[in-house]
């Protein structure tokens, strides 16, 4: 295979004991691993595991509290990003971040400027030294574009590129700095299968040209086809590292992705009639962001009093589904009906008044406001709907409704009643999530949507939050739950949908999906080479 595995491996990058803390969150603790010269290394882990933080530490954007990063024996910790880059290490960004105002070739040329070391004076004096440096940059850039297969598009505006081409451009641009180690942040996210194959081929060519590659990725099929070794992060610690084949069979890795929280759900199943008319109905819903297709025509139903969960890997289209329903992004095709009426053309704030509430990912509280004020904001659209004057001083009717809603929420979350005048920023993660759900409930919704309520929470707190959901369902509220912790979500849900690459690949009752051994594979998409050969035999 590759030369690195036959010779003694030479350590190129060494990460030792790196710890980073953001406020109350331990993003990384004692992370250590190495990258060997000439290899392709994959860094994986569920959402919030600390992968992006680790990348930011290595590339100099975040300074670790403890620990060190050495590159070719040189200490990188504490150096600013531009200096790290000049040491010979380059990273890309999640959304490719092409420079849209430039042409494709200019994007790559920009990467060579720093190494050239010509400043303002060099630029001003260019009429003396007839533009050789620009010509040299142009030649270098064309070489790099050739390597990733974009040479034919060199003089096109960068914003005309498709999502897949933008990732290739980001890689070519990174190579333009002549770095010896290329770190790609989620290069395949949101790409089609064909685009992923082109990307994988480009990455192999880049390695063959003598550059070591490390990449962060959620699509584990892509990872296992490309990486020789893996490092797995979960909750800020390395839970596994080694050869891809071994790591991908590690039960701990699977558990990290699917979650292993067991819930006690005190609720009679089958309380919802399967024939009842759906409260929410999505028909062939399509969502596109520019060149990216996030949802490829999905059908989904939620009935009153039902808990439905939507699970799938990162970038599968879960959040896009919620955004489409709440009106934060537009459908490119298809239809959504709510309570018998089409939602098309209804602005997001009107949808809240219609009975749809979202507790967004990452909670999105106002940290400087009190718990009470945060909750009140959830009632805003109703107060506004009662008349403009109510914004200054709610009328009697509006005020009564606010009070009733507030009482309901505080009955439901007695912990919040105790902390009602505390600033939201001082709450613990679990309490913060309660405020986020409470804020959504303030509008007395018929449909409550929760985006990753367990994000960043300890298993015990996750359990506490998720076990509350059946009580909401008993009140007749329909719950649509997007959750990374699929294991826990399926236990609490009546029904579940499994999303992959913007399409629904499995659908059934919570128990069915929980028992089905296929879900894990469909969800994670591991590809084992030996399984392929078994089928062939």
């Amino acid at each position, binding site marked *: 295979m590759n030369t690195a595995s036959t010779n003694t491996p030479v350590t190129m990058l060494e990460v030792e004991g790196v710890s980073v803390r953001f406020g109350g969150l331990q993003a990384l603790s004692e992370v250590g691993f190495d990258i060997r010269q000439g290899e392709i290394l994959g860094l994986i882990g569920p959402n919030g595991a600390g992968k992006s933080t680790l990348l930011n530490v290595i*590339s*100099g*954007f975040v300074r670790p509290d403890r620990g060190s990063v050495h590159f070719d024996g040189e200490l990188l910790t504490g150096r*600013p*990003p*531009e200096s790290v*880059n*000049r040491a010979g290490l*380059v*990273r*890309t*960004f999640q959304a490719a*971040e092409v*420079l*849209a*105002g*430039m*042409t494709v*070739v*200019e994007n790559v*040329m*920009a*990467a*060579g*400027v*720093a*190494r*050239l070391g*010509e*400043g*303002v004076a*060099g*630029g*001003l*004096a*260019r*009429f003396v030294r*007839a*533009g050789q*440096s*620009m*010509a040299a*940059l*142009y030649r270098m850039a064309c070489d790099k574009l050739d390597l990733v297969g974009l040479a034919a598009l060199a*003089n096109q505006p960068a914003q005309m590129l498709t999502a897949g081409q933008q990732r290739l451009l980001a890689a070519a*641009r*990174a190579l*333009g*700095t002549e770095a010896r180690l290329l770190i790609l942040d989620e290069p395949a996210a949101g790409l089609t299968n064909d685009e992923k194959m082109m990307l994988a081929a480009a990455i192999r060519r880049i390695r063959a040209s003598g550059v070591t590659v490390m990449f962060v990725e959620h699509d584990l099929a892509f990872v296992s086809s490309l990486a020789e070794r893996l490092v797995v992060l979960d909750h800020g610690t390395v839970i596994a590292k080694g050869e891809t084949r071994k790591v991908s069979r590690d039960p701990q890795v699977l558990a990290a992705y699917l979650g292993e929280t067991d819930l006690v759900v005190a609720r009679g199943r089958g309380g919802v009639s399967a024939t009842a008319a759906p409260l929410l109905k999505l028909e062939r819903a399509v969502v596109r962001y520019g060149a990216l297709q996030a949802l490829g025509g999905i059908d989904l139903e939620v009935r009153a009093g039902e808990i439905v969960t939507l699970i799938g890997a990162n970038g599968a289209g879960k959040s896009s589904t919620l955004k489409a329903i709440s009106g934060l992004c537009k459908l490119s095709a298809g239809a959504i009906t709510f309570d018998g009426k089409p939602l098309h053309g209804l602005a997001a704030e009107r949808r809240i008044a219609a009975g749809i509430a979202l507790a967004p990912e990452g909670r999105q509280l106002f940290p400087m406001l009190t718990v009470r004020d945060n909750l009140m904001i959830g009632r805003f659209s109703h107060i506004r709907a009662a008349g403009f004057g109510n914004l200054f001083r709610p009328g009697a009717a509006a005020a009564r409704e606010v009070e009733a809603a507030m009482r309901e929420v505080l009955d439901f979350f007695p912990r919040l009643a105790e902390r009602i005048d505390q600033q939201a920023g001082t709450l613990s993660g679990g309490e913060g999530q309660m405020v986020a759900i409470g804020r959504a409930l303030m509008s007395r919704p018929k449909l409550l949507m929760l985006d990753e309520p367990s994000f960043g929470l300890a298993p015990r707190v996750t359990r506490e939050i998720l076990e509350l959901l059946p009580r909401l369902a008993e009140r007749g509220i329909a719950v649509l739950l997007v959750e990374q912790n699929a294991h826990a979500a399926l236990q609490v849900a009546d029904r579940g949908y499994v999303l992959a690459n913007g399409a629904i690949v499995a659908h059934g009752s919570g128990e069915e999906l929980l028992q089905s051994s296929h879900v894990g594979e469909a969800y994670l998409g591991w590809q084992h080479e030996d399984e392929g050969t078994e089928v062939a035999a």
Partner: protein
Amino acid sequence: MSQSAMKKQALSRFLILAAVLALAAFSNNPYVINLLVVCGLYALPAIGLSLLMGYTGQISLGQSAFVGVGAYGSVLLAQHLQLDPWYSLALATALSAFTAWSLGWLVFRLKGHHLAMATLAIALILHTVLVEWRSVTGGPDGISAIDPISIAGYALLDDLHFLPLAWLVCYAGLCLADYLVRSPFGLAMRTVSENEAVARSLGIDAAQVKRKVMALSGAYAGLGGALYAHWIGYISPEPFSVAFSIKLLLIVALGGVSGVWNVLFGVFIVVIVSEWLKPLGRLDVVIYGLLLIVVMIYCRQGAVAALAGLYRKLPQRLRPGARAGLKLQGRTSA
């Protein structure tokens, strides 16, 4: 664009400019000549701001302050050290560049609206200093009896004689700025403008690039201010108020970022509009503000690009020479 094509373009621009100026000079209309001098002097700080705002993406409402530093700096140096205006001109330009560079350390901790507010504060503070520091600046009355610039013992006293100097400096400034944005450093500027994190990941020291461009922009402003002072012979704080910063902002917005030379388009429009607005007195700022809003909403790429876009939409037969349209569209790389 190839090197020879660039040289040809520079030459043709020089000839067109020279022809326009010669025509104005022969018309012997003092009003037109006066306006053209004003245009040339407005253009210098506008070029600087175009580099900073248009190409490096850093908004500044403080450009008028650096024009003020250049003007007062040159006059005070000339009067107190008995310097020849040529030397005080050069020193004031350097002083203005240094001031801008130093302030860059402070203000570039900020971004977006905060940067706009901090630079606005610079303009306000400088204006207040010019008004209040009577012993040095003469307060609201300003300084008069400023020595004119002389060439070979011949003082450039009237507009007609000053016109070639103003535009020669302006032409040189435009050429240098044009070379700069097409150079590797220009690429770094545009990268910083679009995405600082990407720039840093590519080894470009974004903070340093911003400070350097700020200093250069200050130099352009200072030179413009110093030339203005020695041309008009009398300075007061009024022309260096925030209103002037807003005019410069409008000039840059009208010109857009598809070429340094488009600054001239913005300058001509704003100077002509200023003449129309003279009867309004100080209320003219309201009109500039409205114009700025309109340009920002409807022609984000600048009025030149917007006009070029309209032109391309015309049916082929209505275009006098479609090749010229293609030239407008072509943005150069190497």
